[in-house]
């Protein structure tokens, strides 16, 4: 059993929901990332989604786009991100880490090479935003060979046919994109999300997590009434942006947001 499955099994047994923070690796500078990851776990994060910066993050709004730019200024490469995960693993053997990013940096080092190095670093799952299931045969095989999960997005515009395919091919958990738009664009509609998630349970036994547009504890708690977890990105990245000239303050400030979310979700 890998860390993702173990974590969701444990949460289920405890009757709790997953809080999944997203931060871009190397934002606002590379030295921030590992301490930030530990602080997030300390504050109650169950899984960490670590963004791999890309020069052209087409599916992201300005908030994460700028995070990529801040990270790339320091020349953060995919291999550097893997080093960060390896460093994180020295002190944390249990918290699942999912890399989230775009395909080209992965292609640049090769699928198999990437999968082996990611496994060795202690990565548990990979979400490649611009790689839909129809194109993913090669990467999926490489990840499977290393026992890594491939995590797919499902959106409100996903057709029933494609949803079925995604549910069959995905592993780890499924990431439901709760708004039509890019990351950070607008607040989600909880009722619509609830309807969709309930319906999706017919297609899969995988944990269903919801992301895009969750800005506060209230929204996270509402989402977790129906979903297995809430993914929180842009509010955290905004906080990092505000503190980019005082990077040493980033871990505590960002963790505080997650702590609030944790409290709200657990209280609901």
């Amino acid at each position, binding site marked *: 059993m890998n860390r993702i499955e173990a974590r969701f099994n444990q949460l289920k047994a405890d009757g709790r929901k997953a809080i999944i923070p997203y931060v871009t690796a190397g934002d606002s500078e590379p030295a921030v990332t590992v301490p930030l990851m530990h602080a997030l776990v300390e504050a109650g994060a169950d899984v960490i989604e670590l963004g791999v910066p*890309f*020069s*052209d*993050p*087409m*599916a*992201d*709004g*300005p908030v994460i*786009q*700028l995070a990529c*730019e801040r990270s*790339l200024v320091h020349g953060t*490469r*995919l*291999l550097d991100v893997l080093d960060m995960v390896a460093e994180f693993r020295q002190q944390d053997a249990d918290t699942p880490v999912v890399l989230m990013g*775009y*395909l*080209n*940096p*992965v*292609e*640049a*080092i090769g699928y198999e090479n990437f999968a082996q190095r990611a496994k060795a670093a202690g990565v548990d799952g990979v979400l490649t*935003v*611009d*790689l*839909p299931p*129809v*194109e993913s045969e090669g990467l999926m095989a490489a990840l499977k060979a290393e026992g890594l999960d491939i995590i*797919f*997005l*499902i*959106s409100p*515009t*996903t*057709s029933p046919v*494609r949803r079925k395919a*995604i549910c069959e091919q995905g592993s780890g958990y499924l990431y439901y*994109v709760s708004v*039509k*738009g*890019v990351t950070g*664009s607008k607040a989600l509609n909880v009722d619509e999300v609830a309807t969709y998630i309930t319906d999706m349970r017919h297609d899969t036994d995988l944990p269903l997590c919801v992301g895009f547009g969750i800005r506060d504890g209230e929204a996270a708690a509402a989402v977790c009434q129906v979903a297995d977890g809430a993914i929180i990105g842009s509010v955290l990245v905004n906080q990092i942006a505000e503190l980019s000239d005082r990077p040493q303050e980033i871990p505590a400030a960002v963790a505080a947001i997650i702590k609030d979310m944790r409290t709200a979700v657990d209280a609901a």
Partner: protein
Amino acid sequence: MSTTAEQNNSLSVPDANGHFGIHGGRFVSETLMGALEELEALYERLSKDPEFQAEFDKDLAHYVGRPSPLYHAERLSAHCGGGQIWLKREDLNHTGAHKVNNTIGQALLAKYMGKPRVIAETGAGQHGVASATVAARLGLECKVYMGEEDVRRQALNVYRMRLLGAEVIPVTSGTRTLKDAMNEAMRDWVTNVDNTYYIIGTAAGPHPYPKLVRDFQAVIGRETKHQSMAQIGRLPDAVVACVGGGSNAIGMFYPFMDNTETRMIGVEAGGFGLETGQHAAPLTAGRPGVLHGMRTYLMEDDAGQILGTHSVSAGLDYPGVGPEHSYLKDIGRAEYVAATDDEAMDAFRKLTQIEGIMPALESAHAVAYAMKMAKEMSPDQVIVVNLSGRGDKDIHTVAQIDGIEM
């Protein structure tokens, strides 16, 4: 005349998933998959619908002014000494470039889909102008994304778009050029997918765009074949076109695919020279990767980050290229070369002074290479250059190079 069935050739790409060999495909976020599937289904139907095709042809004839002439540039040919240079005059189209062939087609798709709003990305502004034009004509709301750097160097086209009623949004992310404008247009589309049609301006992007843009632009090559037979008595020895995203080139090449006696040559932007790294020539100097929804040759660093590009012409200043060109390179059917900024500027001046035709700086790259080729050819040999656009939009750039304040 322009049914896509007729355009089929023995290569029959792309396949059902939009692949041209290893290139192409549909590498987008799940949030866009629905819209692309819808567009694909609609296009599959309409491309076989005689009524749609008739409407497209009628617009090309009466609104764009097609067919565009095939002109023998006799004085330029004599100047080069050698082969004959002929020009396919896409610069004479309404709005001044080949771009309008595609926007007419895609605006019709928007109309059939009942979308009241269109968006577009633009580099040189020609595609933005062509999109704003068709939007005005159909009464559609139009928003054009343009890199801040291009807004500056193509000021005339920015004002044209605004006069036509379009909103021009300067894009400040990344390198502030065409690739960033395309990112921004994609983001808009994801957000407003219910009421918005995205008119991509070149034969690139996720499936089905490379295919449908090619089909709409293929009128260029079809006319060229007919005109060559009528005016020259045979097909040309070579067709030459500049390659930014690759739409004017693929439009010229596609109908010639099975005519292997005709060489097909795409000219990329060599910028300050390939050896400087300051260029926009992914086919000549890049490697395959994934960007903007497709696998194709790209300019990228070792870590897979997309590199900034340089070209004197905004319309060629793009780190990727349409996937069909990548395929044609791989199978060796087409050849790809580069012309530098200086060579393009020289060709711009020569064509202006010797033929009285002022080409777009993009098109000047194709002219530059054709002039080089002609010198090596015999007088009975024929090169057709796709003169993709006129140069009015570039007067500021040229004046600046000449040190003239305007």
